């Protein structure tokens, strides 16, 4: 029930908003905050219901083999919580800035949220593709929402690359369907080990390329910096914080379920992609003069960190990847919100023109500093903790090259974030004296506080053990298959 509602409620909100707009806008003003809050609460509730044991929802009352089933387990729970917080923050940011005026934005926003929840919950390969289509379309539209030529061009680029990625995912799904005559992921997982090797390799290649394209990993990243930097602030935060994580979730889910036993070399490919994207992303980021492009390239690099964790294919590796995904949502959404707001206020995105910003926008710059320190990995902030666990996981797996890349990447990222911060703290003149509005400051402060708390939490509570449990449960495909097919 609650799993279904987590998708259906935002979806019906998207259907209701045009009606409310057409027949009296007072209704829109009244109901929009309720819709945002409802979607947030329901997503969190779905996350909570799946955290302990497998939670299932059967559509049409059909068993999993015949119909479509929603499955929530630990892995999807963490990503659902991530999506709830990320979407909530950008909803708040946009609502605070624009009110209920641009109603079409909210329609697309709720479609995006519904379909992301759908991807995170579904246990059916084709259903995942359908939700992928909605969510990619909504993302392209949100990128070009401002209708400036940069935004429209970035949206078009994203559309073309995203469609190519969707094509690969569909091709992989079609091969899987031809080979096994079923689309349910648990049934597929059960029959993958008997599949001929040639088919298996085609499916694996299609899936890895498709999901990496959607996630913006290095060789396929070139749409990402444009899309994430030219969108409006709320959308940049949403895209970098949440949307790419949904593709990471799909990559984890598909690679563990389908290829964990059948074709373990997939994980080596994912590790290589991760290392490439880490180094490439950081090197490109260190050359940027535009602050939002810098953050966007930094996202490419952070996707690399997460993919290295996934590529380890062990419980600790998956746990570290999931933990880093959550942390990256907090850090990057926060960074995009603070940097985007500052850039909007002083009407430039060039880093050199931001000299002395600290003396005029103390609150925002302080929040930016904490978040940047977290993403670089200054102990004891959360970025340090998850990077530490990533290094531990790769050393456990004896892939020292990946561990070395993790450390080396951190050094590069420190260099360019320090460059930005030193510009902010050098005395300079020429900004109008007014502090950002309270709600934006509150969001930024909340996110940076979360970074501090999540960094300290592993010392006091067994939160890391929880993540390891999530990882080992995601690795245990037999339990997943039994839970879905035998109910």
């Amino acid at each position, binding site marked *: 029930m609650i799993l279904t509602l987590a998708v259906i409620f935002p979806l019906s909100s*998207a259907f209701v908003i045009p009606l409310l707009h*057409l027949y009296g806008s007072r209704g829109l003003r009244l109901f929009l905050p309720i819709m945002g809050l409802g979607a947030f609460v329901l997503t969190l509730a779905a996350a909570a219901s799946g955290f302990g044991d497998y939670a299932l929802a*059967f559509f*049409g009352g059909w068993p999993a083999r015949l119909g479509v089933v929603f499955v929530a387990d630990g892995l999807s729970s963490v990503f659902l919580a991530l999506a709830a917080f990320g979407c909530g923050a950008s909803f708040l940011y946009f609502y605070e800035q624009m009110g209920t005026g641009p109603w079409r934005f909210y329609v*697309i926003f709720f479609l995006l949220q519904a379909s992301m929840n759908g991807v995170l919950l579904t246990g059916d390969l*084709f*259903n995942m593709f359908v939700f992928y289509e909605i969510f990619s379309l909504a993302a392209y539209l949100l990128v070009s929402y401002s209708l400036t030529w940069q935004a429209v061009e970035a949206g078009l680029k994203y559309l073309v690359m995203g469609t190519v990625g969707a094509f690969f995912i569909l091709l992989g799904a079609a091969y899987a369907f031809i080979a096994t*005559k079923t689309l349910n992921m648990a049934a597929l997982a059960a029959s993958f080990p008997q599949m001929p090797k040639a088919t298996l390799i085609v*499916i694996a290649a299609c899936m890895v390329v498709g999901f990496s394209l959607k996630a913006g990993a290095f060789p396929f990243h070139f749409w990402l910096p444009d899309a994430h930097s030219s969108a409006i602030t709320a959308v940049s935060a949403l895209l970098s914080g949440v949307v790419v994580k949904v593709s990471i979730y799909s990559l984890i889910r598909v690679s563990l379920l389908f290829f964990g036993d059948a074709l373990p070399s997939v994980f080596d490919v994912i590790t290589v992609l991760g290392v490439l994207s880490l180094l490439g992303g950081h090197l490109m980021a260190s050359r940027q003069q535009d602050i939002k492009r810098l953050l966007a390239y930094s996202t490419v690099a952070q996707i690399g960190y997460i993919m290295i964790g996934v590529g380890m294919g062990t419980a600790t590796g998956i746990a570290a990847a999931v933990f880093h995904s959550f942390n990256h949502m907090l850090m990057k959404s926060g960074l995009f919100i603070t940097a985007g707001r500052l850039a909007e206020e002083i009407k430039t995105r060039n880093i050199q023109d931001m000299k002395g910003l600290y003396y005029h926008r103390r609150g925002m710059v302080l929040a930016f500093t904490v978040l940047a320190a977290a993403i670089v990995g200054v102990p004891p902030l959360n970025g340090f903790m998850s990077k530490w666990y990533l290094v531990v996981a790769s050393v456990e797996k004896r892939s020292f090259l990946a561990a070395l890349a993790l450390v080396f990447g951190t050094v590069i990222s420190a260099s360019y974030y320090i460059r930005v911060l030193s510009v902010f703290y050098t005395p300079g003149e020429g900004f109008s004296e007014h502090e950002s509005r309270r709600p934006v400051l509150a969001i930024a402060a909340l996110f940076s506080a979360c970074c501090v708390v999540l960094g300290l939490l592993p010392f006091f509570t067994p939160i890391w053990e929880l993540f390891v449990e999530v990882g080992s449960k995601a690795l245990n495909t037999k339990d997943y298959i039994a839970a879905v097919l035998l109910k």
Partner: protein
Amino acid sequence: MGLLLLCLGIGWWLWKGVAAMEDPEFIIGPAAYYIINTAEETGAANIVAAILFDYRGIDTLGEASVIYTTVCGVAMLFSKSKYKRSSAGLSFIARRGVSFLVPFLLLYGSTIILMGHMTPGGGFQGGAVFATVTILLCIVFGSSFEMSRIKPKTKETIESLGGLFFVFLGGVGLLAGAGFLANTAAGFPRGQVGNFLSAGAIPLLNIAVGMKVGAGLSTIFYSMVRVLELEFGEQMSEVEGNDKN
């Protein structure tokens, strides 16, 4: 040349993936189950409709939402253009001819939607026919005529109501405790296979999808043709301006 070789290589590799699979002699998996049990379990004579709207109903809701997203996006992208003037439309003969045709087209569209559970067809196809009618009106009579007959506001209302109707029908199943989009399990009457009134909620879901798709495609065409006319109008005024100079 290198590119051609690369494409051929990938094609060969993909072909090897297909060739490695052995084709079973019989239909296996869920497909076999659908063929045997659809009529009994859902009451629909059209197995494809039963799979689309009953066994895998949530996929259909998703696909209809893809169209909804596209419509919203097209309307958003073209919202900045201001409507200037309508195209004049076609000649008297074309107008008369189309006005004779329109009632039959409407009937045809309704048939496709309403009989979707018995014959090939359904909400998507019938909705496309309805959209074609509005597009024909727009081309033959000019877009201002079409706008005055079927207001954009009406279209958006129909589209959103279609989506809500779909969700409502799904919600009945949820409230009945049989799962979202449950059909006969939620108490919708199964009827006699092959009768007009059969297959429980499937005809209603077809209507919902038809509303959504018909109004949506029509809105897409309308938003885009306005821009074309705008550009055409601008060019014309430029030509006139050049003539004066």
